[in-house]
């Protein structure tokens, strides 16, 4: 039994409009896309203003944490990038954001992306699995060496070629998984259209 819920009908319209783009760009898609960009911007404004009030302003007023003025002022400096003369003031907010962001993103990489990965590979070469991983890691690592001329001559050159083919097989596996991702995502929409909207299936 076809759905009577207006919300489901709106959702069905947007599902079809967003799909139509694949066949040909058309007004329904343009309308859908501008709606999507607009409401995403709209709810992020509402969300962040709510957070600013709950996390920043209320504690500052009620618990007297006036140091919260510092991040608020830093945040406002960013708007000076619109002025040509005082553009440099915006650098204060950006500098704080970049320092905090880069420092946070940088700090664990040595351990988790290098040391721990090395440790996971210095395991006994007593299984076919372990040996293949070992070969792929050392050939793959050589493939990304760009500033050492010695690595471009034998025997390293062959190892780097093996490394590149290993990487291509791995990328193929990743591609295969991406097929499942994208098809699975649209599958969900198809179930919505046939079951929730048209009610052709229980």
């Amino acid at each position, binding site marked *: 039994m076809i759905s009577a819920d207006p919300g489901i009908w709106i959702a069905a319209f947007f599902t079809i409009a*967003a799909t139509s783009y694949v066949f040909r760009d058309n007004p329904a898609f343009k309308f859908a896309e501008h709606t999507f960009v607009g409401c*995403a911007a709209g709810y992020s404004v509402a969300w962040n203003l709510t957070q600013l009030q709950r996390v920043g302003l209320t504690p500052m007023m009620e618990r007297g944490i006036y140091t919260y003025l510092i991040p608020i002022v830093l945040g406002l400096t960013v708007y000076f990038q619109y002025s040509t003369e005082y553009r440099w003031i915006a650098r204060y907010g950006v*500098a704080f954001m970049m320092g905090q962001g880069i420092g946070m993103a940088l700090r664990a990489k040595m351990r988790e992306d290098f040391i721990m990965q090395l440790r996971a590979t210095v395991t006994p070469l007593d299984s076919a699995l372990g040996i*293949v991983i070992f070969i792929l890691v050392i050939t793959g690592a050589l493939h990304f060496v760009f500033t050492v001329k010695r690595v471009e001559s034998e025997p390293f050159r062959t190892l780097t070629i093996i490394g590149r083919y290993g990487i291509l097989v791995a990328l193929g596996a990743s591609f295969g998984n991406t097929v499942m991702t994208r098809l699975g995502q649209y599958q969900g929409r198809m179930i919505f259209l046939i079951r929730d909207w048209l009610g052709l299936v229980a």
Partner: protein
Amino acid sequence: MSEILKRPIPLLITFVVGMLMVLEYFFTVPALTATYDTVNTWRVILYACVYLGTINLLLLHGRRVMRRDPGQWYYSAWLIVMIAAYAVLGLVWGVDSMNYRWMIDNVDVPLGATMYASLAFYMASGAYRVMKVRNLGTGLLLLSAFLVIIGNTPLFPATWEGFATIRNTIFDTFVVGSYRAIRFGVGLGGIALGIRTLVGLETGYMGRRE
């Protein structure tokens, strides 16, 4: 004095805050962690003050409406109405209200889900049109993709468990080994970029180097 304010002091802020984050990770020093927690709280509040993306959007589409760009201005006008509606109703009703959930579930979710999902069609035409075995490299890539897709399709492992084993073996060997080699670079390259930024050698984000 104003020259120091323009560049050296912002770079110093980036370095000091960046090093605070790094040192807090390696050393258990209560005062350091307390400062770090405060800076994180400030970062959340600062984030909630910055609406540049929405402002740029309003400027861009506002200009299109003012100029009455043919075939575009009414879409831009609608976009501005959408920003206003979702922003105001989000504050009036509350972003956690059931009314707002209705607006999200019936507009945003179908749009967001379907736009990404429609990439499935590009993958289908891509598979047919451009995924050709042109050389050994693309051949290996396609063979591996083929075996993984078969392993991911319950129809095949249900007939012969070996298909699932082949798929899992490809992941447990090629993907682990090769992506670990790739991850070395992501990690070390990320550290190099991070250090360059903290010491002020990489200031792309501050606009061109004067």
